Structure formats: C-alpha cells, structure tokens
C-alpha cells in the first residue's frame, strides 16, 4: 500500500484515496475545430511510461481534494506532490 502525502492532510494510507490517472491532459479547444484523431488522443491515448509519472489523486475519504503526485511507476517511490493549480501543477 502506498503512503501518500496529501498536501493538506499529510501522509495517509492509499486506501483513503482514489487515483485519477495521468495528470496534465488538456481538453482540446473549440469542439467543431477538433479532428477525430485529436479527440481520440485526448479521450483515450495515455503516456503510460516506465519511470517518473505525474498523476492525479483524490483524497476521497479525507479532505476530498484533488492534487498531483509525482511517482515512479516501476519502484512506486513518491517524489513529491503538487496542489492543483500551483505553479508546478499547470495545466
């Protein structure tokens, strides 16, 4: 089980959280100007790489806020967290 440092509540057990997947996926602009391929990329395609990964987590059974965790997908080591909308967290 991961020990996840919520930026508001501090380190808590993973079972309090829900993982929201890859962070930084931006919804493409004006819908009528977006091609099917761009839309597919936004909806379905994922980086899914080995190594350091920025991902969204939700403290579902705690403060109920979303934030970003930098975690290595091979070792599971957590490198740091960012609040949503903070400088490092954009977009």
């Amino acid at each position, binding site marked *: *089980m991961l020990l996840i440092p919520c930026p508001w509540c501090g380190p808590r057990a993973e079972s309090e959280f829900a993982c929201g997947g*890859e962070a930084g996926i931006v919804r493409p602009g004006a819908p009528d100007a977006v091609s099917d391929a761009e839309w*597919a990329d936004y909806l*379905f395609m*994922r980086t*899914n790489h*080995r190594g350091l990964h920025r991902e969204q987590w939700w403290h579902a059974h705690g403060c109920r806020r979303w934030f970003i965790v930098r975690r290595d*997908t*091979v070792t599971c080591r957590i490198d740091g967290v960012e609040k949503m909308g903070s400088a490092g967290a954009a977009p």
Partner: protein
Amino acid sequence: MQGAPAMQRYSIFSLLRNALSHHERWQAAWRSPEPRPAYDVVIVGGGGHGLATAYYLAREHGITNVAVLEQGWLGGGNTGRNTTIVRSNYLWDEAAHLYELSLKLWEGLSQDINYNVMFSQRGVLNLGHSLQDMRDIHRRVNANRLQGIDAEVLNAAQVKAMVPILNTSPGARYPVLGASLQRRGGVARHDAVAWGFARAADARGVDIIQNCAVTGIRRENGRVVGVETSRGYIGAGKVGVVAAGNSSVLAAMAGLRLPLESHPLQALVSEPMKPVIHTVIMSNAVHGYISQSDKGDLVIGAGIDQYAGYGQRGSFHVIEGTLAAIVELFPSLSRVRMNRQWGGIVDICPDACPILGKTPVRGLYFNCGWGTGGFKATPGSGFVFAHTIARDEPHPQNAAFSLERFTSGYLIDEHGAAGVAH
C-alpha cells in the same frame, strides 16, 4: 533452415524409453540459437501470445524465417502469472466470437502441438449476488446462445449442488441468487502453454531467443526495417509486438501512442489440499476468483491496483480485500494458509477489449490490451495475429479490434463481462 534436429514426439512410448535411461536423454524442448542478422518476421515478446503467433505463422502461412525475442525467460510475463481461467462467454458478438475461436483451438491444442497443456473443461461459474447481477447474467447467457456458445443460468440450489462448500444461505453477506455456467470453460497449465508453443514453433524452424530485450524499433520512410536489441541490431521485414504490460513502452519506440494503462494484478495460491472445488467460481461483484489446481492448491485471483505500475507487484490491501470476500463465500476455507503471492503487469484498455492489428507504421503490428483476461485467448490471438502479419490485413475475427476504433468510436464495451474478471 539451420538443421533443426527432428522433434522427438512425446508419447507413452517415449516416456517409457526415457525411463530406461533415467530421463537423462530427453532432447531439449527447443534450440537456443544465436540471433541471425535478419528475419522475415520478428515477434517481440515470448509470452504465450507471441509464441502462438510464431507457431501459426509457420503452420498456417508457411513463414518460418521468424524469431521470437524475449527480454527474460519464456512465459515469465503474464503467461506464467495468471490464474488460467479459460472461457468464451463474453457479451458482444465481436468479442464472443474471438474468444470462442480460441476456445475451439484449446479443445484440440494438446494433440495439435504434441504437448499436454492440461486443458481441463471443468466449467466456469459467474455468480450473481443481486437482482441486477441476475438480469445481466440472463442477458449475457441469451446473447451467448444466439452466438452459438454454450451457456446456462443456474439458480442458487443448482449452484449449491455443484459447489457444496459455497455459502448460499439467505443470511450470507454476499447472497448467491444464481450463476451463469459455461461447461466448456475451465483451466489450463500456463507454463505448458508457453513451452508447448515454443517447442512446436521451434520444430518448424522458428528461432526462440531469450534474454534479448528490444530497445528500439528502426524505421525508414514510414516502414519498419528492424529492431535494436540488447544483443545487437536485428533486421526484420515485419515486426509483431506482443508485449502485454510493456506495450506502451514498445509503442513509444515507434513514435506511437496507445490507449493503454499498465496496472499491477495479483494472484495467490494456497498450500495443497484435498479436492474441494472441482470447477471455476468467479464473482465480479466481490473481485474474487477461485479454482483448485490439479496439485491441490487453491488458485485465487484479485482485482487490479488502482494506479499505473510496472513493478510486477501490488498492494497488500488488494489481496486482503479479495481474501475477505473469498472467506465470506467459502467460510470453511478461513484457516487455509496461503503459500505464494505475486503480481503481473496488465495492459488495461478503455473498452476492456484487445487491440490486434496494423499500426500507422507499415510492417509494424501490435497485439495488446488483453488486460486481465488474455490467457484464455492465447491460441486464438496467435492464430488471427499470424494471419494479420502474413497477409498484412486482419482476419475477419479481429478486424473490429483495430487501433482505429478509438478514433471511429466503434468501441466494444466488455466491462460488463470482462471488467474485473479474468
């Protein structure tokens, strides 16, 4: 062909003959050749699907100048880590027909490849715990019958008669209202599937090369020309990637993106016991799957961890949750000790269906996205993927499973039938 010695057939007579020489003269099951500079087809990934692909390339299409490159050992990926459930009772026609093609191949596989894969059609039960579960079960069973696939609905008493140790009392925490049953479903010996396909492919001239990690996919003018590996560059007319949990990593080597997320999935086995469960019991609702191997161990599968992970291990609370559910369903198992626990990396696709087909790079094909449930598809997947590679066009049975479906929107939503189950 570099003089592959004729494959000695396995039979009761070869067993007796080798017993006389104390089993010290068995022929190696496959050669371990040095890689050649180039092949007509290179298959990346020596799991069951990759080895089956190589076998059917040779047998069905006469393409034998083929190498299977495996970074570790054969079947060391999900093939050797899964709970071996085989069934074909999926909901949608496209998926059901693909898995049924595979189930039909399973039924003759041991004879076909002259290797006992211990395919045992002991039946697969999917439990229903609520009225909605039962409605879904009826719908799926009806769909399967229309597809020509064997399927039955059992009521609680019939389930109890089949599995006496299952807690079907009205006061149970997870009441059992009934189940779907596919009698032709069952289990197989996972290692034997990898080894059997390897031996049969090798006998037809395929080079099986272990400890050979692919690190790059070389392309020229939009066409694949070979692969960089830990054992040097290997040229290739065509490349088929069958790398399960590592598929996105391979795709990135060719500048492609896939709709996959790799997650840990765990399983565990108990100490061996006398026979208590003679069928396969699955419960999607409580994320628990159980069968008993021929050795007597209870084989139990869990759900995936929620985060992406390549570490081939998962979190303890996931198997804790699964075992809590198993003990509610089978109270008499509460004192059974677990022997071993492990994880694999499963490539989860948004519609819980595989991707099997061509890519924007000419001569490069991907077979991935089987997620938590691809063992059952091993022979069928190899069969249609070999066709796709040999003819440069999909077999009718895998045409719907293209990468383009994520652009066209033609998804095949199998979450109901496959979501968390194997």
